[in-house]
């Protein structure tokens, strides 16, 4: 029996359908015209289940961080509103003659505004970290597309890339990592 060869695009598209689009292996087989047994082999060989779970986790983390950021910003606005109101109350009054509870509340609000600003900055850094964590995957996806493209259109160029691959990776790391 002749072993059938599949192009990289078909494997890659099938992986995308499973990992990102959430399709079942059966549905992928129907959509791509590849046998279910072959799709199952790819899923096992390339760790699709693990990739899908990692993607799900990354999306959930990013959603959770975004939700927290939205809440922090709204609550920060509330504190700033409270502070502005108190500024109006203090206008024309001397602080040492003002009601001590009000002064204490005022100081608390200012401290809380400062704390929230720090938290928002931290959250922002975490979100940027999540985005950064995706970059190696994007690079990998790009490289796979490039290899697939050259394989069909310009095998000599692919050979040249293979020859200089280590050097290319060092250059790419320096520039984009």
């Amino acid at each position, binding site marked *: 029996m002749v072993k059938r060869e599949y192009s990289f695009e078909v494997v890659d598209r099938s992986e995308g359908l499973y990992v990102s689009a959430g399709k079942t292996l059966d549905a992928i087989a129907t959509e791509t015209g590849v046998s279910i047994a072959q799709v199952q082999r790819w899923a096992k060989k390339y760790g699709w289940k693990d990739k899908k779970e990692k993607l799900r986790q990354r999306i959930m983390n990013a959603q959770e961080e975004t939700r927290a950021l939205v809440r922090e910003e709204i609550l920060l606005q509330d*504190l700033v509103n409270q502070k502005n109101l108190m500024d109006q109350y203090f206008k024309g009054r001397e602080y040492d003659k003002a009601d001590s509870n009000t002064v204490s509340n005022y100081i608390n609000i200012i401290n809380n505004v400062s704390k929230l600003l720090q938290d928002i900055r931290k959250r922002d850094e975490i979100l940027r970290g999540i985005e950064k964590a995706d970059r190696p995957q994007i690079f990998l996806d790009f490289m796979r597309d490039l290899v697939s493209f050259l394989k069909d259109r310009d095998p000599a160029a692919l050979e040249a890339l293979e020859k200089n691959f280590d050097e290319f990776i060092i250059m790419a790391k320096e520039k984009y990592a």
Partner: protein
Amino acid sequence: MRMSIYNNNDLRREILKTLNIVPFCEFNSKAVLRALRESGFGGLSSGDLSVQANYLQKKGYIEIRETENFISKEKTSVFAISDKGIDLLEGNHPDVGVSDG
């Protein structure tokens, strides 16, 4: 009777998590409502929030205080998480009435 579109236990937990952004700090109930609406609880009504906030207050997880705007004299409620509420979020004493997240 109008049915709530949210699971009450989840909503109670989210109220606590929102207030725990700055522990013990008092936040205007309108700001809490907006924060929840814009982060996953789109159709939440002030009535639903009030019912669940009162539940949390009865259990000692949050404190509710009626206050008055310095300038407009408008009355409003402010919420703050309590020590017990923080303990609950930290998983120190689970409660079947609040999701364990």
